[in-house]
């Protein structure tokens, strides 16, 4: 039972981090109807800046710099590439984002090389004991921070002018423009916000018990794709649910790997994608979505 509870808490914590990534993914889709495959490299960029800067300026300043850098990279991708790619189809735009992702990831992994970069976080490998349950401090912080960011984001989405502009654009871009909404700004801000959230997620994906940032980090970030898609690409609620489902499934599957040996090794890594496929077979637009990715 204690094992199950530990796995569950860890799963929820990892899931909350995935939800941060998925949320950015969903925001970009809502604002621009583009499926953004550049997301993993935005995350890697944020993590890379934190890893390189923390020895020089300390963890917190490096974290701020990483968040700003990932937001900037996101905004630049939007401004320099997607805004100028006058292709008619969203599908082609999605492929453009894959191209950008490959370019960015290749450059970043070349810079990282075979190193494993520590992020210099203040939590280290400390653990918290709550009765029989032992959880890494990083996991608790990740859960609290991700939850706070998600709540702040949802409140902004609901109540600020920015949020109203985002939702209006998501529902009907032409009519939003008729209300004086500058669609370019909406799209730019969506990419910047997504980048910033991805950088925070990068930090939590690379701290204990993960050894640090390495070339495999982008692959970890890829698990947020099934989270966003199974939740429903255009639903913020879906991003949260999807992130939690993916995090918990993955953690439980990995935790009970010996019992699940018949499924083969590495089932934890494959689980998010399996869950996504099953859910999409049952509900093509995801759990909370209204638009099917195929129609994009």
């Amino acid at each position, binding site marked *: 039972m204690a094992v199950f509870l530990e796995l569950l808490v860890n799963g929820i914590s990892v899931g909350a981090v995935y939800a941060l990534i998925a949320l950015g993914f969903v925001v970009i889709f809502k604002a621009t109807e583009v499926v953004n495959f550049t997301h993993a490299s935005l995350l890697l960029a944020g993590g890379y800046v934190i890893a390189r800067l923390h020895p020089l300026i300390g963890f917190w300043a490096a974290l701020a710099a990483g968040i700003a850098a990932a937001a900037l990279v996101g905004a630049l991708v939007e401004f320099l590439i997607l805004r100028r790619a006058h292709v008619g189809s969203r599908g082609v735009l999605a492929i453009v984002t894959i191209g950008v992702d490959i370019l960015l990831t290749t450059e970043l992994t070349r810079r990282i090389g075979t190193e494993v970069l520590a992020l210099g976080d203040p939590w280290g490998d400390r653990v918290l004991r709550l009765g029989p349950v032992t959880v890494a401090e990083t996991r608790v912080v990740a859960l609290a921070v991700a939850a706070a960011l998600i709540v702040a984001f949802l409140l902004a989405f609901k109540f600020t002018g920015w949020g*109203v502009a985002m*939702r209006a654009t998501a*529902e*009907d*871009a032409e009519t939003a*423009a008729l209300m*004086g909404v500058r669609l370019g700004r909406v799209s730019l801000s969506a990419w910047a916000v997504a980048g910033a959230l991805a950088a925070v997620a990068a930090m939590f994906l690379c701290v204990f018990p993960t050894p640090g940032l390495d070339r495999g980090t982008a692959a970890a970030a890829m698990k947020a794709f099934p989270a966003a898609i199974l939740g429903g690409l255009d639903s913020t609620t879906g991003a949260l649910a999807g992130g939690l489902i993916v995090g918990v499934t993955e953690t439980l599957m990995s935790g009970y790997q010996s019992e699940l040996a018949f499924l083969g090794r590495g089932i934890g890594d494959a689980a998010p994608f399996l869950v996504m496929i099953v859910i999409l077979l049952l509900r093509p637009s995801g759990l909370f979505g209204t638009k099917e990715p195929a129609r994009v």
Partner: protein
Amino acid sequence: MSGEAGPETGGPRSEGPRITDPEKTVGLEIRGLEVRYGPVRALRGVHLSVPGGAVAAVLGANGAGKTTLLRAVSGTLRFHRGAITSGTVAFGGSRLDGVPAAAVVRRGVVQVPEGRRVFARMTVAENLRAGALGVPGRLAATARERVLDLFPVLAERAHQRAGLLSGGEQQMLAIGRALMAGPSLLLLDEPTLGLAPLMAARIADTVRQINAQGTSVLLVEQNAAMALALAERAYVLEVGEVALSGPAADLAASDEVRRRYLGVGATHSDRPVGTDSGPTPEEHERPARHERTRLARWTA
């Protein structure tokens, strides 16, 4: 309302850029407008003006180019892969053609789109808030007061999803949302389409009221009787060209318009007849009294 007293700015002015003379440029001036959607030419040689404070009506059958005309003014042609290929659109003396939609709103020209297009997943209050996104926030409070005064039902429904409103209420919301930007010129695209006669009359009253508060109106309608009763000037579009134009009262009295847009032999107090019959092949009989009853043929 300025009635017929307004200066005749719509006439075929001898050419030359009319950017100067601010006295006469307060209002909308469309000159020699041609619009294409790829190879399809939807408008050509259209001249139209809405003097400051006036109501102008544009009549015409389905596909005549009425919506295209409004898109050319509001800067939304690009959403439909259309473009202005010739001619100019100016408001208050400065050019609107080539200006992005959001900037047109900031110049004081706001369009209520065809088919209302309220944000169905947002509440009524959020829709109104969306209407004020393009202008400084401090203006929103007074604008909201004006809107809720015109449409008290929107206050009652403030927290309902807009998608759940009736057609008439959605039209009120669409107009109210546009007024949130405090426009000096309101573009209305078939506001009474699909509404019951009583609700249509209600909308007509509101348009009159909005105009009385100082907002100019360019009204696109298939309901010719209503539009001609509201407007000082009217234009009839046929297959992308202005076929008739003149004081609304004169058009309402003309045999041509009465036969084709108000129903044969009808007086304009009668129920309007739809215009779906489309352009008839016969020659236009031009009512003698109208100054600019002509087929516009302008090419740049």
